[in-house]
């Protein structure tokens, strides 16, 4: 039966390859300057993601939160009581984490807060903040970092961020868009949600294995 799947993949790919010739010559981009300015943004992608396609983004945030909750359910029930091996703390990692963490946090906040004016936005900023947490976890060890960060409070604040984002988005879908203040607050909330979600995934994966 595998040959059916192989033939189907080859046929599908050749269909796509034949279809790409309709993309040439490239059509002109419809004028986007006025609608973008109307949403209070200078970045057209931010205006689409948080303005014209806000429903899509809100449901995407919900899907993200559901997937993170699924990871927690799948790995939280494993119940391994294996003692963790001690983390070898290398001074190189520790020092570089000390030096790099502040700039990473500031960069992610800057990218989130100015995401409607230039390249950036909530999702890349959350990914940057999450990778900063990964760096800190490599230097310190996941369990110790989780205790120092008060992870339970973080998870509650993630759900709070999602609820606030849904409430804000729903209100502005009904009432109309007030301008760039909504974009800034939505980007900051998305940053928080994505970063905490990435941290939760990292923590549960590392705990299922033992340590980072």
């Amino acid at each position: 039966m595998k040959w059916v799947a192989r033939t189907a993949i080859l046929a599908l790919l050749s269909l796509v390859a034949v279809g790409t010739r309709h993309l040439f010559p490239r059509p002109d981009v419809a004028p986007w300057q006025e609608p973008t300015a109307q949403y209070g943004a200078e970045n057209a992608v931010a205006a689409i993601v948080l303005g014209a396609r806000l429903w899509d983004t809100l449901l995407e945030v919900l899907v993200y939160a559901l997937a993170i909750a699924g990871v927690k359910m799948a790995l939280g029930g494993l119940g391994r009581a294996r003692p963790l091996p001690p983390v070898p703390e290398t001074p190189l990692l520790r020092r570089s984490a000390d030096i790099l963490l502040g700039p990473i946090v500031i960069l992610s906040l800057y990218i989130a807060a100015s995401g409607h004016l230039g390249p950036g936005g909530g999702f890349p900023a959350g990914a940057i903040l999450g990778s900063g947490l990964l760096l800190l976890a490599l230097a310190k060890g996941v369990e110790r970092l989780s205790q120092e960060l008060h992870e339970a409070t973080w998870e509650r604040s993630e759900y709070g961020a999602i609820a606030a984002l849904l409430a804000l988005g729903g209100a502005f879908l009904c009432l109309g868009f007030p301008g760039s203040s909504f974009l800034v607050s939505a980007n900051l909330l998305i940053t928080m949600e994505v970063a905490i979600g990435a941290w939760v995934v990292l923590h549960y994966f590392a705990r299922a294995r033992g340590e980072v």
Partner: protein
Amino acid sequence: MEGLSAFVLAIILVGLGLWTLIERRNVIWKLLGLNVASGGAILFLVAVAYRPQARPALLGLGPGPTADPLPQALVLTAIVIHFATLALALAYVIFLTEHRHTQDIHKLEREEE
């Protein structure tokens, strides 16, 4: 036909990923194949957004052609959802390995029967 090479690369990536998805027997290899295929789809959308001599879709950068902002917004969604679903799938692979002690789908199917 400017920008054709990106389309060719995207189609090759999707083909390789789907091929790995059906040929490999290990679940983690299947997920990696799905990952590569998703990268190809993302590259395809970015290549659709490309215009020759275009600048990014930001206001106040001057006249001239700009890249299409809509596929870029779609790609943003695709990347985030892809990360979340891949994490969920890997979590279930860990769960499966803990309970069945194998990642080979043939063995898993034989155990089911």
